[in-house]
């Protein structure tokens, strides 16, 4: 899906996302059909599986919003006892999954992840 160069550049963007926002503890870019393209994390999460599950959840989100005629699905938020996970489209084929363990960091997680997704979309659009 992505060339090696694109993978390296995408990983760089995930790296800066984690460097600039200490609350975000992992970020994954996955294809919509569930293949991991790039990842970055502070802890040891099973990111391959998270990537595939991210594709499942994103497609369900798209299916639900289409059913309700609410336009495109921007993001899916999963708020949990131990943290928050956000899933969002980068473009038609790619999904960004990010997570934080801080329960009060939802706005920050969404804002920074959205910016990162836009940067990745721009990068891939230009290469």
């Amino acid at each position, binding site marked *: 899906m992505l060339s090696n160069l694109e993978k390296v550049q995408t990983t760089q963007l995930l790296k800066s996302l984690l460097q600039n926002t200490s609350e975000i503890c992992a970020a994954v870019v996955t*294809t*919509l*059909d569930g*293949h991991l393209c790039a990842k970055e994390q502070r802890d040891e999460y099973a990111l391959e599986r998270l990537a595939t599950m991210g594709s*499942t959840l994103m*497609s*369900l989100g798209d*299916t639900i919003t289409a059913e309700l005629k609410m336009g495109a699905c921007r993001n899916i938020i999963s708020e949990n006892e131990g943290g928050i996970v956000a899933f969002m489209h980068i473009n038609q084929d790619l999904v960004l999954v990010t997570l934080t363990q801080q329960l009060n960091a939802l706005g920050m997680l969404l804002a920074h992840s959205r910016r990162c997704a836009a940067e990745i979309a721009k990068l891939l659009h230009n290469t």
Partner: protein
Amino acid sequence: MKEIKLVFTGSMGAGKTTAISALSEIPVINTDVRATDEAALRKERTTVAMDYGEMTLSDGQKLRLYGTPGQERFSYMWKILMEGALGLIILVDNAGEHPLQDLDLYLTHFRQYIDSTSAVIGVTRMDMAEQPGLDEYYDYLAQKELQLPIFSVDVRDRDNVVMMLEALVAMLEFAY
């Protein structure tokens, strides 16, 4: 029985999504996305969450039909979708490279459900590849000490699939 939940599983491209679209009386829920890997060579789109449809048999029995993604990386969905299911349909693409090995993957993963609920095997695309024949499938099951009905089906043909489902539902009614 009030409503029966059935699950279609099996190899990618075997026809799970096509079968549910052919059968359903309601607009199907479909989660196919563009395939980005080697699968794209065979099929443009692939299921990443589930298919869902509903139908009524001629005797009034209502069926809820779920389809799983085929690829093993989505096996967490297999477990989720089997929750509460009374019957399992394993579809195998006979035109795939190793149909019996494909079947083996699902027999292994779903063994617990096969033993506790009812299951049938539907071999699809036999018009594209005649071999292995159904007798080879029966031999293969015998090796695994399994006795399941095997059908050759063209899932594009509604009546064909209905016949297989009626057999499965009859097994269920017999078992309960």
